[in-house]
């Protein structure tokens, strides 16, 4: 029965550019397709709006995977933001997106009007995106879904730098990416990665901080195979 079988695009895992038509909906009836980033519906067709690789997550979610310097907020992402302004109700946080994000002053564990945290301009915050659509400013929260703090909040000391969103996704991939594994075997450090392309590194000694951040910055252009050997070379220079 033709209408029950989900139509799979012929271009899955191919590189697509804006303007490519990946699906024709005229044949399909009563089926739901979920569109992620980089795709839009134009009458009866699904067209690509950003260049990248088309991915399919069964049964019916499509998106275009690409790596950018800017970040497009989406719900349930964990990001690193920098406070740029404080208002009575919200902190205004820059998350490298098209608009500033709001962090309500009460969305911290046990937050009441009496114990509002005092964040100065320039504070680094690890938060979760709660609301994100193209019309409104995105909203963040420093609590997880249950209401616990769960490592969200201000990050003190350490060193922050910016990367592309693709590199941030790779650092957060599971199983642990070879880069962080190789670095973790020899050095001790703590790291926070925001899906918006910001990374925070902290270690007891400054040389560890510099090593880890340089290794990450340089791996923008290496693939997984080369990362391990690059890290080994870097560490050998130190010893």
């Amino acid at each position, binding site marked *: 029965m033709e209408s029950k079988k989900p139509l799979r*695009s*012929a*271009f899955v895992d191919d*590189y*697509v*550019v*804006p*303007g*490519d*038509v*990946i*699906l*024709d909906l*005229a044949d399909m009836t009563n089926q739901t397709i979920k569109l992620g980033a*980089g795709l*839009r519906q134009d009458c009866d*067709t699904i*067209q690509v*709006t*950003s*260049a*990248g*690789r088309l991915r399919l997550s069964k049964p019916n979610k499509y998106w275009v*995977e*690409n*790596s*950018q*310097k*800017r970040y*497009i907020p989406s719900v349930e992402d964990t990001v690193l933001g920098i406070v740029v302004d404080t208002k009575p109700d919200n902190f205004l946080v820059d998350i490298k997106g*098209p*608009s*500033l994000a709001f962090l309500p002053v009460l969305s911290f564990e046990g937050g009441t009007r009496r114990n509002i945290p005092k964040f100065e301009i320039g504070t680094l915050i690890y938060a979760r995106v709660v609301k994100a659509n*193209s*019309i409104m400013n995105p909203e963040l929260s420093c609590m997880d879904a249950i209401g616990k703090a769960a490592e969200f909040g201000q990050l003190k000391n350490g060193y922050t730098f910016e990367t*592309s969103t*693709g*590199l941030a996704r*790779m650092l957060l991939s599971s199983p642990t990416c070879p880069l962080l594994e190789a670095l973790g075997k020899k050095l001790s450090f703590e790291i926070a990665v925001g899906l918006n392309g910001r990374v925070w590194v902290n270690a007891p000694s400054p040389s560890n901080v510099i090593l880890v951040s340089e290794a990450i910055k340089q*791996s*923008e*252009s*290496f*693939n*997984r195979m080369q990362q391990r050997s690059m890290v080994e070379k870097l560490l050998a220079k130190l010893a």
Partner: protein
Amino acid sequence: MEKTEGRAEGRKANQLRKYACTRNPLGRAHGSARWEQGDTVVVAAVYGPRPGTRKGENPEKASIEVVWKPMTGQSGRQEKEYEMTLKRTLQSICLLTVHPNTTTSVVLQVMSDDGSLLPCAINASCAALAFAGIPLKHLAVAIGCGVLENGDVILDTSKAEEKQLKSFAHLVFPNSSKSVDLKESQQKDGQSERGLITSITHGVMSEEDYFNCIERGLAASSRISDFLRTTLQKHTPDYL
């Protein structure tokens, strides 16, 4: 008498100069591209989308601002005209309703000018927008065509040729896209339905010559379109 065989470096009428595109040569810009067509080189940088629109722009749509920097001298009327052409062209290929109330700035720097400057700039800015991840309806491919005395059409005019020609046109087409088989479309019909985004003409030419230019330009644009596709693909990082 001008013969098509008489082009510099033995180029044929339909032959384009060697073109090249570099991805993100500028570290600080959110997306950038350096586009070379022969000796004409333009670097385009894209910053955005940034929050806030300028006064007078519609806040329900994203706005695009273009700054054109000439190779030497200050910006004058010619640069303002290029900026306006580019702004209108880019507005028609960008999806403006995806990020309302934001501004995307495109800055173009002319590195060297050997004819077909506007097409080169349009190609560079389109590539830069694609590298920056700005949502686009489709890519834009630009080409310059000139009309000789005897009515022949030559493509990708150099500066010397532009001075001698009585008329030439800069045309911008949407790119040729991959698509699953739509019921009504066939390859040849699909081509002619692609339409024209922008057309700037200089000098006087007859209707027939103009339509000739469009036809030749369309055929050549699919070559540039394929090149743009491979360039975008070639430079994706390996970890993706």
